[in-house]
């Protein structure tokens, strides 16, 4: 009997229109996936504050996956462009926060791409397992994480 | 015709073996018949290519391994080029031929004898010695063939009477030797 504790903590932030739908499509097609991932539904990838991700890591998440609509397909026209800009900046900051960038993935999956979703989950889960559980972060790292808030001076600078 | 007992005659291990060795997904075949339609050798086959595919899907090991078609197939790749499901049918035919040979089937004796003669020549000389291959084939098959061609070819300088070994002859022979050893392992 496998140990349920063997699942790592992977948190997914998915936009409601594309990727959440893609995950549903994968479900409807019964495309088997590892069980580690738990999904937080948000209206748009543009709603995702990098701080959510930093806090998730601080809270002990072993991996964080963000998935939104393909670049030109955003339900809200341009929310995913905002997301991309913020998250790319965030990705560059990860090492400074003491977080292996391999634990974070930002990708696009549309509502019809059930198979792609299955692949993304399988690949990312394997990647996180290869890295093992997340070492505990210090409060100072989190303070540094606050710097990656889009309203902080870095953005646009 | 007897009733084909699908419950007991379906050898799924065989299906898995062919799938693994060929790297092809056999369930993709939906029996459109394109391979049969395009194959230049269908006229000489006992099982058309699409029937080989179907029998294979049903794990009909004996029927597939003992058929002549898998030996006659010339790997012309017409089937693979046109299969709407991107199945490399020619590769499957090749794998079946290899398994069939391994397991001692040879419904097309002369084709096998010719292949053996050819490879023996390569092993001995490093390159094919055409006349030697022919002589060896005649010896194996006890069939005199193409006696009309010899003089024509000779007259035009297309045939050498003596083999010329390459320097790396031993290296080539060792390839064969190591291959045989790997089979024994």
């Amino acid at each position, binding site marked *: 009997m496998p140990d*349920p504790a063997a*699942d790592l*903590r992977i*948190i997914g932030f998915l936009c*409601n229109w*594309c990727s*959440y*739908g893609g995950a549903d499509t994968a*479900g409807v097609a*019964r*495309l*088997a996936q590892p*069980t580690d991932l*738990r*999904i937080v*539904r*948000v*209206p*748009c990838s*543009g*709603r995702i*504050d990098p701080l*959510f991700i930093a*806090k*998730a890591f601080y*809270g002990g*998440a072993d991996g964080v996956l963000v998935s939104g609509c393909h670049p*030109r397909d955003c*339900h*809200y*026209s*341009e*929310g995913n462009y905002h997301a991309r800009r913020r998250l790319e900046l965030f990705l560059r900051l990860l090492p400074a926060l003491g977080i292996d960038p391999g634990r974070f993935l930002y990708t696009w999956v549309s*509502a*019809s*791409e059930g198979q792609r979703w*299955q692949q993304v989950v399988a690949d990312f889960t394997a990647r996180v397992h290869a890295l093992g559980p997340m070492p505990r972060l210090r*409060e100072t790292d*989190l*303070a540094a994480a*606050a710097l990656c808030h*889009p*309203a902080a001076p870095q953005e646009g600078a | 015709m007897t009733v084909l007992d699908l419950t007991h005659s379906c050898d799924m291990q065989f299906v898995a073996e062919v799938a693994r060795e060929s790297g092809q997904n056999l369930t993709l075949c*939906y029996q*459109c*018949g*394109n*391979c*049969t*339609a*395009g194959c230049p050798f*269908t*006229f000489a086959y006992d*099982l*058309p290519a*699409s029937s080989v595919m179907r029998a294979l899907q049903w794990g009909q090991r004996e029927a597939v391994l003992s058929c002549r078609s898998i030996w006659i197939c010339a790997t012309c790749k017409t089937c693979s080029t*046109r299969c*709407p*499901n*991107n199945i490399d049918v020619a590769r499957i035919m090749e794998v079946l031929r290899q398994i069939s040979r391994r397991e001692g089937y040879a419904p097309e004796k002369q084709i096998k004898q010719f292949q053996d003669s050819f490879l023996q020549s390569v092993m001995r000389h490093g390159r094919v010695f055409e006349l030697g291959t022919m002589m060896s084939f005649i010896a194996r098959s006890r069939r005199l063939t193409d006696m009309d061609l010899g003089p024509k070819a000779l007259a035009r300088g297309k045939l050498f009477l003596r083999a010329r070994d390459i320097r790396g002859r031993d290296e080539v022979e060792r390839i064969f030797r190591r291959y045989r050893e790997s089979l024994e392992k």
Partner: protein
Amino acid sequence: MRLGVFVCHCGSNIAATVDCAAVALAARAMPDVAFAADSVYTCSEPGQEAIVAAVAEHGLDGVVVASCSPRMHERTFRRTVARAGLNPYMFEMANIREHVSWVGRDKERNTAKATDLVRMAVEKLRRNRPLTPREFPVTRRVLVVGGGVAGIQAALDCADGGLEVVLVERASSIGGKMAQLDKTFPTVDCSSCVLGPRMVDVAQHPGITLHAYSEVASVSGWVGNFEVAVRRKATYVDWSKCTGCGECVKKCPARDAPDPFNAGLAPARAINIPFPQAIPKKAVINPAHCKQLTTGKCGVCAKVCPSGAIDYAMTETTVTEKVGAIIVATGYELFDPKVYGQYGGGRYPDVITSMQYERMLSASGPTGGHVLRPSDGREPRSVVFIQCVGSRDRHIGRPYCSGFCCMYTAKQAILTRDHVPGAQTYVFYMDIRSPGKGYDEFIRRAMEEYGVRYVRGRVSRIFPKGDRLVVRGADTLMAAQVQVEADLVVLAVGAEHAPGAHELAATLRVSIDEHGFFMEGHPKLRPVETNTAGVYLAGACQGPKDIPASVSQASAAAAKVLGLFARGTLASDPQVALVDPRRCVGCLKCLKTCPFGAIREEQGRDGAVRAQVVETVCQGCGVCCVTCPQGAVQLQHFTDDQILAEVEALCRIPLPTCG
């Protein structure tokens, strides 16, 4: 707060791989949970009644249902909790079917995951607040994009229902593919006799504004109030003057323009009216082929036009239309068989497409309804049809079935026998798909009464032999390689997405599937809706469809629009952003990032500038929330607190409150 949790079995859909009772048991230990139970079919009537009863009995303030995707039943259960007397937003769903039971194989792990998802939902619900939608007025006009049979039907149904309709058609006439057809299955009645009068109705209906030779350039706004820019391409003919007399066409010396209406069977003039029944029946100049426009030397049409309609200086214009809903009916495109080199790939003149054959059969087509070989104009004695060309073929990236080609092939084979008595017809097929009413009988008639010879197998190649063509295929039922000598070969080409579908989808902010067809909201429950409120689908733009299915869907889409407009107002989604005036410092970063212009600058009584969200304009994307340095603007129902509560519910370590 007192919360109730209901864990659904969905029959065995969930219960087979999730221990639902264990999830409910675990939920009972979660904070504020006053009641938790498992339930066999939560969305069924007894399932919903159990929720209503539990709310009353246990005095619940909110409900979590752990079941299928919220995309499936969130609305259903919001109505349920409303019936129980709660605010519909005091409800959360945990998706333990699509995201757990259907994708995980290990029951123990699935159960742990389902429990986590319930914990997340509970933590979020603890922070939910009642929300109330606002009413806003709608523009009771509808835009129909595409004037094929589906668009025509949708436009007429909407207009007959009392709505104003704007119909935008890319070509110079409405009618779509159906206008090109000779006769239609399964009745074999004349296509233009059926469609023609409907097209005239469109032209004459006072409620319909037709923009032909036009395209949708951009769309802004939202359900109830869209603003659409329609680009009217330059026709070089003033349509208000053109009477469609056709004098110009007769005299035009440029005779090598492409003629899409005749599927390339014959060339057209540079100035053209596509067919006699065109609506509108107006001339259009093809600027790439007109001698006047390319070389400046001609001007014949301007000289002969009795109405002085020709205008070589015309440029495109844009008109703006305000509408409350949009129906997409842009249809499909036919597969180009040139990629099949083995079928001649365009090299053999007597290998034609089904649409070319349709034009050949049509009395108004270039051959006047005579079946003649393009190569030598001879009547064929033997016609071979090949099905599934460009369909059900992964090799060329078209794995899907085009749905209508089996049927139209049977139709064309039958018509061949009518047009060329004594001609022999063959059909190579893999499967025959004829599930409609009277459809299979139709196929049988082709075989039994008309003697069409069906061969079960794909064709591998076609090659010329003398002036005939040899079609080499297989009859898999005989396990034989077969060949047929043909005078004419007709390729039953499949359907692919309409050109420009990707761009239109991006403009309308709706999704398309992997093959470029528009995505419906739900394949069973919302087949004519999209996931964008106020945008509907009709006809083959959603996937290959024959005429009966296209028309049904068009009427369904029209009914949806009529339903949407039934009351003069719509309720706005209350999941919108809200500015906390106490925290806002008036930097207006949010105003700059909002993609919908939903944020206004407001001067408060204290004179300070602050941001304010216009509730009916805000689409609830949440982009502004991440931008605000003060955390002053929050998306209701998706606040920072709520999202972080979900994250925290998953974490081993409590989250600090920094940032």
